[in-house]
């Protein structure tokens, strides 16, 4: 398994594990009526599970499994894929830190944080698609079958 896939998968699994906790707390709140404050965790739960967890696990496996070039020696432009990993996790970090930044620096800082996270997340998607698109093709073994 290549290094970048291991990075995506480890962070993805960590985000899943962490993201399930606020979701569980919200469900406990629904069942018991205690601690309505848990609902502030809903955006963190959604983002950590969907973007941090499931998406990164999917990207990690795609980077690992999709057809390669040059007889399996190359995965193409890996710099793009690394950019995707870095920008996606930077966006994730900003979203997670958003409540603290809002508390310390006010609403303007919070808005800048969200805008930055949005741009970084968009860049992550663009760079990964740019990397993986040429790899969406028949694998070499399929191409060599007599027709």
């Amino acid at each position: 398994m290549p290094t970048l896939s291991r990075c995506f998968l480890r962070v993805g699994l960590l985000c899943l594990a962490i993201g399930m906790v606020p979701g569980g707390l919200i469900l406990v709140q629904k069942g018991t009526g205690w601690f309505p404050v848990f609902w502030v965790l809903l955006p963190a739960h959604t983002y950590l599970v969907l973007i941090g967890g499931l998406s990164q696990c999917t990207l990690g496996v795609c980077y690992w499994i999709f057809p390669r070039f040059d007889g399996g020696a190359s995965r193409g432009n890996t710099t793009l894929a690394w950019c995707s990993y870095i920008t996606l996790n930077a966006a994730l970090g900003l979203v997670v830190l958003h409540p603290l930044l809002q508390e310390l620096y006010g609403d303007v800082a919070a808005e800048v944080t969200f805008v930055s996270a949005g741009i970084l997340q968009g860049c992550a998607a663009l760079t990964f698609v740019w990397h993986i698109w040429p790899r969406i093709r028949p694998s070499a073994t399929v191409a060599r079958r007599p027709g």
Partner: protein
Amino acid sequence: MLYFLCGFVLGGLLLSTLGWKHQAIFGVLQPVYWHLLVVGWLMQCIFGVAYWMFPPFSKDQPQRSEPLGWFTYGALNLGLLLRAVVEPWHSLSPQAGVGWLLVLSAVLQVAAVWIFVINTWGRIRGRRR
């Protein structure tokens, strides 16, 4: 795939009854819809493929711990099915005992994911030389 089918059918029903969204029943089904798809379908497909395809943990224990794998499967599905039944019921007609089933659902689902992560972590590795 069963969750995919049920989730999409439920979503279709919710969409087609969008004009009736003032009815309480449709509002309480929204979280069920999302969790059937995200947890029941997407997450479970990812877990299944990871369990199957990730590099073996060792020659003797390729999937590391099969009992933990089965625990993940059982706890995730039991927790999700409990939620699918109890959450709308409790929202429409809250009762003291029923709410605690949601607590059980939460514990089962969180435990399932944590056990999966622990059981899978050692399989995220490069090629052994």
